[in-house]
């Protein structure tokens, strides 16, 4: 369920980079997806996410060698599904309960900055492995903004002609995370 699902570096080497039109289409998709998150339009976000969507963030660490990854996928910071995010994250913003969702009322303002989008084709013509760099800026109440950066590896699929987000794996750069809250959709 963890690292192996998003393709190893070796798989990536074999894959071809997507062409310009596809790159543009997927970049636009990611920008639109970010807009939905920044605007807290979660019910619309869910519509562009696969039923079996999995979102995982492994624990960042400082390893004892430059040849080891700066994360540990035995332990996770976040492990969510579309079901859990719908029922446990987004439900908290519904009219009937948001007032007691203390940690998100008032909500932290998030700004997603998605750059360096790399589209890789896979053996399945309708499945793309998309890597991008993410900077998330979070501003809580009157505090100064804080930011966190990382690398996303997304699986984006074309189902019935439409792009959907099927999987997201985010490796963070910061080891001791200093951010307004850790319930973050990077």
């Amino acid at each position, binding site marked *: 369920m963890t690292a192996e699902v998003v393709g190893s570096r070796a798989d990536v080497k074999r894959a071809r980079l997507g062409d310009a039109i596809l790159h543009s289409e997927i970049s636009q998709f990611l920008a639109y997806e970010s807009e939905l998150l920044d605007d807290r339009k979660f019910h619309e976000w869910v519509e562009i996410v696969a039923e079996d969507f999995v979102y995982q963030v492994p624990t960042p*660490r400082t390893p004892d060698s430059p040849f080891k990854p700066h994360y540990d996928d035995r332990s996770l*910071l976040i492990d969510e*599904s579309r079901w859990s995010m719908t029922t*446990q994250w987004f439900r*908290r913003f519904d009219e009937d*309960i948001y007032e007691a969702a203390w940690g998100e009322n008032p909500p932290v303002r998030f700004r997603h900055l998605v750059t360096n989008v790399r589209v890789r084709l896979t053996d399945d013509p309708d499945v793309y492995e998309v890597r991008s760099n993410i900077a998330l800026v979070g501003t809580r109440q009157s505090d100064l903004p804080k930011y966190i950066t990382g690398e996303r590896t997304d699986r984006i699929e074309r189902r019935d002609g439409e792009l959907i987000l099927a999987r997201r794996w985010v490796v963070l750069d910061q080891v*001791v*995370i*200093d951010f307004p809250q*850790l319930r973050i959709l990077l």
Partner: protein
Amino acid sequence: MTMVEVPGEFTVPRRSWGDDEVFDREMQQIFRHCWQYVAHESEIPEPGDYVLRKMGRDQVIVVRDESGQVRVHLNTCRHRGVPLCRADSGNASHFRCSYHGWTYANTGELRGVTYQADVYGKGGLDKKKLPLFSPAQVDSELGLIFATWDPEAPSLRDYLGDILWYLQLIFGKHPNGMEVVGTPVRNIVKANWKTEGENLSGDGYHTTITHSSAFDLGLFATQKDLVKLADDVAPKFTGRTVDAGNGHTMRIQRLPLRLQGNHYFGYPKEMWAGFDRMLSPEQQQAMSCLSVGHGSVFPNMSFIENFKTNVDGPDLHARYARITVRYPIDATTSEQLWFFLAPKGADPEWARLSRLAYLRTNGPSGLFEIDDTENFVGISEASVGDVSRTLPVIIEGGKHHPEAPPELGWPGNVVDGDKTERTIRAFHRRWSELMDLPAGDAAGTGAAR
């Protein structure tokens, strides 16, 4: 041991959560003397394995030496003070300083001084006198490694006292033992180091308010969930709190199920017999039908075992175990470490569910933590004003709750009553003893005792 609660006002001035002078005194009076949790033995199973941790504001290396003994060393070269370890974890038989190359065995002995004869002359430096600086005592119970700088401190077993019985409930009931799963998550919380520990010490009062939305989301067992577990369900959850002495505390809340025999809901049935083997009858009673059990080891370690419902879909319930530690950074900033523990050799499907139960509720990104943290941060934010810092907090809840029947057989001072602040009083009673502030000082606890 009996500790009688004195009626009257129990207050702590709010500057205790945001004042630099109080903080500096805590570093001296508490963190240089108390035993502190540094690591779990499963994190360093092999000779040479090490993890980097903190005791107060001092970074320490926790390492298993070549003979298998666990050692703790201040992470700084005796020569000019450069840290020896820069990775969070790894394996090393020796630590070599990057500045002038002094080299230490993982036992802490200084083994090599580069160009020694050239720089210091013959006999000019006695390596035996310069081992890595280490805590006065290091010991472990139930796989939990603690250390203290104080040679006069009581033994770990005496320091833990009655809380050890309660630690066994969580960390001592698995026949194959437990292990920390991977690297701990670390984050900065803009809150005083005490706030989360106070909550986890046994604050059953905040739950239905702070975590109100968790009820709506199905993460607390409701009557709908409970009737599927037992035919006979009582309307109300019941809880007990324990003042285990030395500032250590525990709260145990039970599912309102009327059942014969032990039912460790949240674990696969195949594991239940093992718990009966490992725990005494009184301990089995404490863990059967557990809703939640949590507590704190003074000063900055907390632990929790929690039964969480519907975590990955309807009727998918599991228990999990977690340790958290707060490292003080300044009066309004802490670093928090999050350790998820799993029984060794557990069924992988259940282990996954246990992990999800943890991450989605009391994990660093979990629902409960998001709401709790806002309170903890708020306390420090609102305790640094020139007026607000002079106000007392009110920690009076649960003074009228009755003592638990002695035949229960739980050690420490045990009281029936779930919505209480007596564990927070127990923390602050110990805190104020150690802080040893003059009577009437604004940081004292007034009529604390």
